[in-house]
């Protein structure tokens, strides 16, 4: 019995350490600047709700929020469609060169993202897409990871499914859309949640390709605040809360599916 108490105590103390930064951020976002610099630090809010209005006035936070939503939705939808199409073909169709082409896809997975950035920047410059949402969406909808992940799901479906559908005269595209896609829904959900998470938070590419505050995502927008408003922590944190909240809410709601997705990448990776 006493052993059980130790388990709970350790988990609880550890958990408190894990969420202290969140609590602190939330509390400071409701303080005045003077209160936020008090010694000793006091986690007591004085309900300065106007900090949240102020941060929308100091930066185009509303616009950046909208940008982030548009980019995240477009990237996620694109990933789901394109990855599942390719994954279906790799898992269920026979064609010459399938193995080598798939290996090429996998090779992309091994390469750190920084190797893509300079040439991508030049591509965007060439297209006149610097400071545009397309610049954030276009590279994001393609991904080797998603193709690999979904291929694992497609491969687990029984052969008889395609065979029966083919006897009924369905072509591969119809089989993909009407039969296979509904059956890999857990995979799509996992990929979708992971893509939302990554796309919402990614920093380096948005930072370099869109330098106009009106075209920034929340991540880059927040990062660009760090120099100017460094002493105004309440405002910074109000912005941080607004920026992180949507994904945190999504996680709390979809927790089981996201965790299952991550555990799956662990078992098949």
């Amino acid at each position, binding site marked *: 019995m006493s052993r059980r108490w130790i388990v709970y105590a350790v988990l609880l103390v550890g958990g408190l350490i894990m969420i202290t930064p969140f609590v602190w951020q939330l509390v400071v976002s409701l303080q005045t600047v003077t209160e*936020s610099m*008090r010694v000793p630090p006091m986690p007591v809010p004085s309900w300065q709700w106007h900090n949240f209005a102020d941060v929308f006035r100091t930066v185009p936070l509303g616009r950046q929020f909208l940008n982030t939503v548009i980019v995240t939705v477009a990237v996620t939808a694109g990933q789901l469609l394109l990855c599942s199409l390719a994954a279906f073909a790799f898992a269920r169709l026979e064609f010459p060169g399938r193995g080598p082409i798939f290996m090429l896809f996998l090779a992309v997975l*091994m390469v750190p993202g920084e190797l893509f950035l300079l*040439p991508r920047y030049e591509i965007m410059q060439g297209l006149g897409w610097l400071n545009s949402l397309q610049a954030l969406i276009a*590279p994001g909808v393609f991904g080797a990871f998603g193709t690999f992940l979904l291929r694992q799901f497609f491969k687990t479906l029984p052969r008889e499914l395609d065979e029966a559908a083919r006897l009924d005269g369905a072509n591969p595209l119809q089989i993909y859309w009407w039969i296979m896609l509904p059956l890999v829904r857990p995979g799509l959900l996992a990929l979708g949640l992971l893509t939302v998470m990554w796309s919402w*938070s990614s920093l380096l590419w948005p930072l370099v390709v869109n330098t106009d505050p009106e075209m920034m995502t929340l991540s880059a927008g*927040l990062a660009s605040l760090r120099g100017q408003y460094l002493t105004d922590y309440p405002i910074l944190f109000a912005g941080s809360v607004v920026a992180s909240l949507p994904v945190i809410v999504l996680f709390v709601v979809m*927790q089981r599916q996201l965790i299952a997705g991550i555990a799956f990448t662990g078992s098949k990776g």
Partner: protein
Amino acid sequence: MLLTEERAAAKAAARPGRRPRRDWLWGYGLIAPMALGLAVFYLWPIVQTLYLSFTESGVFGGQTWVGLDNFAALFGDEEMLGALRNTLLYSVLVLIGVPLAIVIAALLNVPGLRGLGFFRTLYFLPVVTMPAAVGLTWRYLYNGDFGLINYLLGEIGIDGPYWASDPEFAIYAIAVVGIWSSLGYNAVLFLAGLQGIPKHYYEAAAIDGAGRTRQFFRITLPLLTPTTFFVMVITLINALQVFDLVYLMIDTKSPAMAGSRTIVYLFYEQGFVQNNRGYAAAIAVVLLVLILALTALQFRLQRRWVHYE
């Protein structure tokens, strides 16, 4: 798995023509959008970056071929050597945090634990939080004058440094945040690994009179090694590419930058602030080689300690 696939392939081959031929077209057609996108935004950039790393940006734009000059310069560049050291130190520190995730996962896996969902949420929250927000928050907690961390250290008689401006300590401060951010993710992977260990091992061990601690070291840890290996590989790959936290927590002109500038941060500075495209490309290539080499090394060493059944 493989057998059934081969059998199915053999069956398809045995059947008369027509269909497989049409399958080819469908196959190429369905992978075409993704293949095209990967070619433009991934494969071509790799080739281009390799090329750039052998060139130098001219004053009026354009690139001139300089052979291995960039690489030669890199290894005499104090900033690059510092970045290599900082990145490796950060990676080692974050790897040291991995056992922490095993402990948390093992505690979450205690049979009959109540509130699993609640605890899991607490530990996983940092994973889903935007790194930009995470960096800002921790920077505040690390503040030398009014930060919580130095206050708590002061309570136990330690005079904390100015973490974010001290080149000695900055990288340790960042590594703590790195561990904090990835703990929940790793714990989820370990939890899945733990749940995959068959119960009968523990039952047999209990019959033999092995206590909980002994079971943990003799059964849990060895059978968990495939997961541990996977977690170490991805943790190292991610740690070698750390950028966000440095960018958010350390000021551009802070003296701490010398002690915390990582490889990717230097890449960003050179490529996008100073516009030394060729030099930045060479940094990226060094990073690629470093990641491939260390990952290969881990795969080589796994034979010594990973148990596959």
